[in-house]
């Protein structure tokens, strides 16, 4: 679906040599502003931010996030302060009392909390009971959303990660062919983009808003890139023929990625929001503030802007933003908590609840910034957030007792628990009634149910793996 629309930005740039934000022209929209002039509906978008922490630190049963009051206009606990600061609490629903069981049940995980629980939540499939451990057992939520929404955007999906550390377990998975010593079909983690500079390059290299005025230089660069990839494909074919089966599979995968990139370069960029523009980022990542301590605020700021613009420019409709990879990446360092140490071992396990609350507030603020930006990005008669389901999923909740049937790792640590978990769902797509606290304590609803509720709002099948259903209270 290629849409050529009148770009006011291009017209204004041509007339005055500068670009300024403009309201959407009426001719871009249907008469009621709820669809594009060509009749295409406004895009629906899925966004998920994954926070690699629990609610409580080791030994603690108190936390500063979950609102006390249920219903609309919930109280702002200390960790949620960014919602108030950025005036987005009315746009975000908080869902508490969720439960992922450390049992062989739908969406359950097998004892090892870090190893299996995120896989279970992100796939909706029980994890660690059969097949290869340390492997997800199904597609992740973003890939299922991709399959069901089937957008024809330049990027089928984007997967970014705030922390720069690579390795460890990620939160986006795809199906692939197993090597000869594996099952025929396995699921592997998708590598996240951890560099905001590279993410910018990926989105905006060769970018120009659709225009009636041709850009010869941009067209030449597009030809250059496509010709290089064409030659690379021929090279892959020649090398492929000389290799054994496993190596051929590696090249098959490489070829698939090249083709994907080729499609993106060939695609045109649609402009949905008048906010769509090239943010002109620098070509380098913010330098670390000290050895192995990234400037996380600066990095997050760049990712936040790219998420907004990728949606505003309709480059993609599906984005996952990981906080840090599970396990390895959970040693995430941040100037905000570097005086304590790494996020996992020191902040979550060996520090105070106040320290963990402060770290959680940092992640909540990143989410709040994205909601704030999407809300401020006009689209049709409303804004991007109106057409988005934006999730915030945490790795864990809080155990209340040493119950091996409710907490992982034998139940000894409330930190290692998928019990009493909290998630956020923002946006108003599909009739979501944002701005309420829905307390589900006692119902043992799986955290994945919040994701399937987002699916429902997006108009796609509300199921993921073994989990299905909708939290009705989240709709108006």
């Amino acid at each position: 679906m290629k849409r050529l629309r009148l770009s006011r930005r291009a017209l204004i740039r041509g007339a005055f040599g500068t670009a300024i934000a403009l309201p959407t022209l009426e001719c871009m929209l249907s008469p009621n502003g709820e669809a594009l002039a060509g009749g295409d509906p406004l895009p629906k978008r899925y966004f998920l931010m994954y926070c690699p922490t629990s609610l409580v630190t080791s030994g603690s049963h108190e936390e500063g996030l979950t609102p006390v009051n249920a219903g609309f206009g919930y109280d702002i606990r200390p960790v949620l302060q960014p919602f108030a600061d950025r005036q987005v609490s009315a746009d975000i629903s908080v869902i508490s009392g969720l439960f992922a069981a450390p049992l062989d049940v739908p969406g359950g995980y097998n004892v090892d909390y870090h190893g299996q629980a995120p896989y279970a939540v992100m796939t909706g499939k029980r994890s660690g009971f059969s097949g290869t451990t340390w492997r997800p057992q199904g597609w992740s939520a973003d890939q299922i959303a991709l399959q069901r929404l089937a957008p024809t955007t330049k990027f089928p999906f984007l997967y970014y990660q705030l922390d720069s550390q690579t390795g460890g377990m990620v939160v986006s998975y795809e199906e692939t062919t197993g090597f000869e010593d594996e099952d025929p079909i396995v699921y592997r983690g998708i590598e996240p983009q951890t560099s905001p500079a590279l993410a910018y390059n990926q989105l905006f290299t060769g970018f120009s808003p659709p225009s009636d005025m041709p850009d010869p230089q941009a067209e030449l660069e597009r030809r250059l890139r496509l010709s290089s990839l064409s030659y690379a494909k021929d090279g892959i074919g020649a090398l492929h023929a000389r290799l054994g089966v496993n190596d051929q599979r590696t090249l098959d995968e490489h070829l698939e990625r090249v083709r994907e990139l080729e499609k993106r370069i060939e695609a045109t960029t649609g402009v949905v929001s008048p906010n769509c523009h090239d943010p002109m980022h620098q070509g380098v990542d913010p330098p670390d503030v000290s050895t192995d301590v990234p400037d996380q605020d600066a990095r997050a700021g760049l990712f936040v802007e790219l998420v907004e613009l990728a949606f505003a420019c309709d480059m993609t409709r599906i984005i996952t933003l990981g906080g840090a990879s599970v396990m390895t990446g959970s040693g995430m360092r941040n100037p905000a908590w570097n005086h304590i140490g790494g996020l996992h071992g020191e902040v979550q396990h060996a520090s105070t609840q106040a320290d963990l609350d402060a770290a959680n507030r940092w992640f909540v603020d990143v989410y709040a910034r994205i909601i704030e930006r999407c809300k401020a990005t006009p689209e049709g008669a409303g804004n991007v957030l109106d057409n988005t389901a934006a999730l915030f999923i945490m790795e864990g909740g809080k155990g209340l007792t040493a119950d091996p049937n409710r907490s992982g790792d034998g139940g000894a640590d409330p930190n290692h628990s998928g019990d009493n978990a909290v998630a956020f769902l923002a946006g108003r797509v599909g009739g979501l009634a944002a701005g309420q606290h829905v307390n589900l304590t006692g119902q043992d609803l799986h955290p994945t149910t919040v994701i399937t509720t987002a699916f429902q709002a997006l108009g796609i099948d509300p199921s993921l793996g073994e989990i299905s259903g909708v939290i009705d209270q989240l709709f108006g």
Partner: protein
Amino acid sequence: MSIATLAGCVGDIGGGDPPDPPVETGVQGETPTTAIPRLSRREIDRTIADVFGIVGAAERNLAPDPKTAVNPTTTAEEEVFDTLAATKTPSQVFVDGLESLAFEVARDFSFDTAAVDALAGCTPVTQPFDESCLAAFIRSAGGRLWRRPLSDQEVDALITTVGPLASDPAAGAAGHYVAVRGAISALIVSPELVYRAEIGDVVEPGVVKLDNHEVVSRLAYFLWGTTPTPELLERAAGPELSDEDIAALVDQMLADPRGVQQMQVFHELWLRYTSLLVTDAALAADMRAETDALVARSLASGAGSDWSQLFTAEETYVTPALATHYGMPAPAQASWVGYDETRAGILSHGSFLSLSQTKLTETLPSRRGAMVARRLLCQAILPPPPDVAVDMGVTVPEDACKSDAYEAHASGTCAGCHNVIDGVGFGFERYDGLGRYREVEQDNPACGIEGVGNVGAQAFAGPRDFVDQNLETISECAVEHLVRFATRDWRASGDRLERMIAAFDGSSHDFTALMRAVATDPSFRHRVDGVPQ
């Protein structure tokens, strides 16, 4: 040690020609490896810098290689070298980054028309592009990037692909250099750059012998971390390299400054002292300089050289500030200063002692012990039972002594692992997370620190004692790590390892001799290929 293959001993008995002599491949019993090991980001960076003079392009465009990975055999998360082939999946992020890198390098280098002409050895004389000059450029740059001569077919195909770009309206009078830009980009995104193909010839079932260019490439990336020079490629284009030829090439390459630099890179990746967790930038810089000086000294080759002083050195290179930090007499300026009787070598450096994921300056003996056991003793620390929350650490009750809490913790299902790693960690406990000596616990000064640990049944107290008792194991472990680094595999085979250890011992721990032994071993010219080609 010469090993004949079983396959070489099997043949027809009786008439006919006598069987071929056994092939000495050095890879008997080893596991299959990929025929297309992918270069690490560091290696791509060096390659681009060497060919185009553009520094840091890979670092700007590619994600770093993982520092840890889950070993599928043990399911344990292990520290890995950036060369490990198993971590190199062709993700979308990688392919996108490679194309972005190609775009940047092609754009920047092609704008420098003098540099383009110099690399090609010609200046274009026809419009919109000079085909013969473009071909010369492709052969020159491509040969370096792909580490082999390009075939006529490959060159012609590339000219056919990028030649039309020269006539693009936006190219103007710079048509030739636009075609060059396209050629550079295509050469970089081609699989031939990032996948260092080792297809070779089958010399016995399941074993291939690398051809000249493949051998020279292996040597260059192992000994230098970058692409072969034109001189090496020229040599590779000649007659088949004999053992003597390879030994001569290895000596020549190790004598090059790039050889010393690569040995330093290996030590950084193995011991990881570049990632020291010290928040005081000035102190961190002093610690890094201290360790760099010792590593450089231990890697010096020739008479009197001794790599083991990396661990046994009785003096250290300190600034006045660092000496004061350690509680040593401060020199007037940065210089080598003698240790007291408990410290020795790098294990006493703040850089290394800060690496055990300490909480501020306080140590976590289990983690420090596990680090030392893995990196220096090559002990496999398997993951804990699934019902153990390993990352909780050991909780020390208020007013309790740390050692008592750890002792109590090391019981039941935890005992097996903690008796190993805590034993090692507590031997270093008199040194805090910044390398300072102490005799009482930081959080509870009423508790004295005994500072005695153990490796197996052998007790030790402090870095010097540890090294005195375990130097042989440490040196063997260094060999094992180097072979992993070189082979890009999870583990080194026993036979190959024994040969390298013998060579290292025989050289009185000259690290250059060890590098030479790895590169000249028959196994370095062969590869086990598990799947028929």
